[in-house]
């Protein structure tokens, strides 16, 4: 198997040659970076807050059993039910079972990356249950029969004309390129879904262990709708989403929206604890929290557990030059971008390790990460782990030889001299337009400057320097 695989290369080429996508990505990621920087500039002690946020994640993951157990106990103490799903299949089957037992045929859903990860919609639809995505971006994607291309702005690759055509076809909306009119059409269609649905499914941004409280952030209010109007609320939560206390959640909220959308806080941040209480006039009658493992626990205690600190803000996508060039779909995974390349092979059946090569390791992702995940290091770790499996035999052999030479300074110096001499012989007028052997692939797209004399080592020695 070669890296990257032909299928991956094809997706990358498709992304690069899609002019509409390129324009949308440029526009979106640029405006995003500006607002994000401003939001952090306005936050006092921003760097201390980020350190603190990281410390909270590190502490929680190191003691995850304790906080998960406390969280589950508190959810149940306040009338919610907890289901532990070891696999994607278990989570889907449980939710389908809940809906079937009550004869539910329509479900309103707010954005949940975990639901994408476990493929919930397909399983529900196969069971004859209609699931309607209610986040505007997700709704558009669902009508188009696609998958999100960005964690925060799923329809980042769609223009207003595309949306208008989708709405004409599926909602009977008259043609328009007015964004407010399109939004109003979606409001009308989805309002009825909120009222009619007998089950609401949401994701969870943080679960507060001390009280069993679910924290959900949304801007549109659809997250509030699906957790308030239907009589049953099902919350899907990755097991790494738990935090010990309200104060910890507050710290993470200081960085989440700033990193995700450049807002100090999203329009709605819900703190939901249990189902409707006796004296409350509204709220769901039943609450189910589905805790999804799906491979996460196998990475606890390994260097990759750091990837579980991720709060899914999407900042690393916007910062990544590779993501900006190829777009989310090219990754072919639910979680795109730098963090997605690390997380994807950690989940489910472990497919997608080749994504670790879709990075220039420039480090822009680590700079913007609000919890300072060492994303480039983790990508390199995946490359190391997978090198034996993914690289062709000749490349592995070549790397072995290289490693031997690099470990012996005398051999390195001598071979370096020979290589430089060879390049100088092959060069024409200071440039090498066509390299020998494997070097040809490189010189096919650019010329290589021929090494100049004196070489650094010669120059250094002429100045009386010791071994450089």
């Amino acid at each position: 198997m070669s890296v990257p695989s032909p299928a991956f290369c094809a997706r990358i080429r498709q992304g690069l040659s899609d002019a509409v996508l390129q324009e949308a990505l440029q526009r979106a990621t640029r405006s995003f970076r500006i607002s994000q920087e401003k939001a952090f500039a306005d936050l006092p002690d921003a760097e201390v807050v980020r350190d603190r946020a990281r410390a909270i994640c590190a502490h929680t993951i190191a003691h995850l059993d304790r906080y998960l157990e406390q969280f589950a106990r508190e959810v149940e103490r306040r009338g919610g039910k907890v289901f532990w799903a070891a696999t994607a299949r278990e989570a889907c089957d449980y939710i389908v079972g809940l809906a079937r037992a009550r004869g539910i045929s329509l479900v309103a859903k707010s954005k949940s990356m975990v639901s994408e990860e476990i493929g919930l919609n397909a399983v529900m639809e196969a069971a004859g249950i209609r699931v309607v995505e209610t986040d505007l971006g997700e709704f558009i994607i669902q009508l188009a029969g696609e998958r999100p291309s960005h964690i925060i702005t799923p329809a980042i690759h769609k223009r207003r004309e595309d949306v208008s055509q989708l709405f004409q076809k599926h909602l009977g909306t008259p043609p328009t390129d007015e964004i407010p009119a399109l939004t109003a059409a979606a409001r009308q269609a989805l309002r009825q879904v909120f009222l009619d649905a007998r089950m609401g499914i949401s994701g969870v941004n943080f679960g507060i262990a001390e009280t069993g409280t679910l924290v959900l952030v949304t801007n549109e209010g659809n997250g509030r709708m699906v957790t308030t109007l239907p009589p049953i609320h099902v919350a899907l939560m990755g097991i790494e989403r738990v935090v010990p206390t309200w104060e910890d959640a507050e710290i993470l909220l200081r960085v989440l929206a700033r990193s995700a959308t450049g807002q100090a806080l999203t329009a709605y941040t819900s703190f939901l604890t249990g189902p409707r209480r006796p004296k409350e006039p509204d709220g769901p009658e039943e609450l189910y929290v589905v805790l999804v493992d799906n491979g996460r626990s196998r990475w606890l205690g390994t260097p990759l557990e750091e990837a579980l600190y991720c709060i899914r803000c999407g900042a690393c996508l916007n910062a990544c030059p590779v993501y900006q060039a190829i777009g989310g779909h090219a990754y072919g995974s639910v979680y795109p971008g730098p963090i997605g390349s690390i997380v994807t092979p950690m989940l489910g059946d472990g497919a997608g390790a080749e994504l670790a090569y879709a990075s220039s390791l420039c480090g822009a992702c680590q700079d913007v990460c609000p919890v300072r995940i060492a994303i480039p290091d983790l990508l390199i770790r995946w490359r190391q782990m997978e090198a034996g499996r993914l690289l062709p035999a000749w490349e592995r052999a070549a790397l072995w030889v290289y490693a031997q030479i690099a470990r012996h300074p005398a051999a390195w110096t001598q071979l370096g001299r020979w290589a430089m001499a060879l390049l100088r012989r092959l060069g024409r007028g200071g440039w090498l337009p066509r390299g020998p052997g494997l070097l040809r692939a490189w010189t096919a797209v650019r010329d290589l400057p021929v090494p100049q004399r004196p070489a650094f080592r010669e120059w250094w020695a002429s100045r009386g320097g010791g071994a450089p």
Partner: protein
Amino acid sequence: MTSPVLERVRRQVTRRSAPSGPIPRWPLEAPRGSAAVLERLQAAWADVGVESVRCPTEAEAFREIVARLRERKVRHVLMDARTDRAYPGLRESLEDAGLTVMGGGLPREEGPRYLGLGRWATAEAGITEVVAAFADTGTLWVAGGAGGMRCASLLPPLHIVLVQRAQVYPCLAAWLAEARASGALVEWVEESSALIAITGPSRTSDIEKTLTLGVHGPREVIALLIEGAA
């Protein structure tokens, strides 16, 4: 409590202790209800698109509400029992102005519950009080609990909210510190299934990153800041 998932987590965790580092400052440090927090609150409201009106008294705020509702030709208002209790006289002011005030609670049985929701969904405005407001972000902190309705700040296209000067905290962290110390946090969690931080009207930028208001929740949020006797 046990499950195979929890068992595996238990086997794998490192239980490493790590230094948690210094505690960052609050996003805003200023006394509750001070002139500084009020000023910051109004600036933050303007930033997030909340229209604000400073009213010297409750009576003045009620008159303002009626005027705003009339301007918008609102006829049905959703208002919960908590707001009713906190602002005696408000319901009368609304009813005297010819408005229909909807409230109460949803039945628990599915059919009647559905019908009740359908009725609430016809309201053109919702009125609520707050637990607190946070000046740094312009956030309205609203709650469920006894008589606390989630729908009043969610279903109608217009949300009118009443805030007392003493309810204005510099930030969520400040409210948490106080609620933790007094035990109020635990009480809220015990009796309320929802505490919602509302920061501006419902918004989306999902189409071409263009900001559009009122996609699902209220398009318009009007805050009445009651200053009381200073």
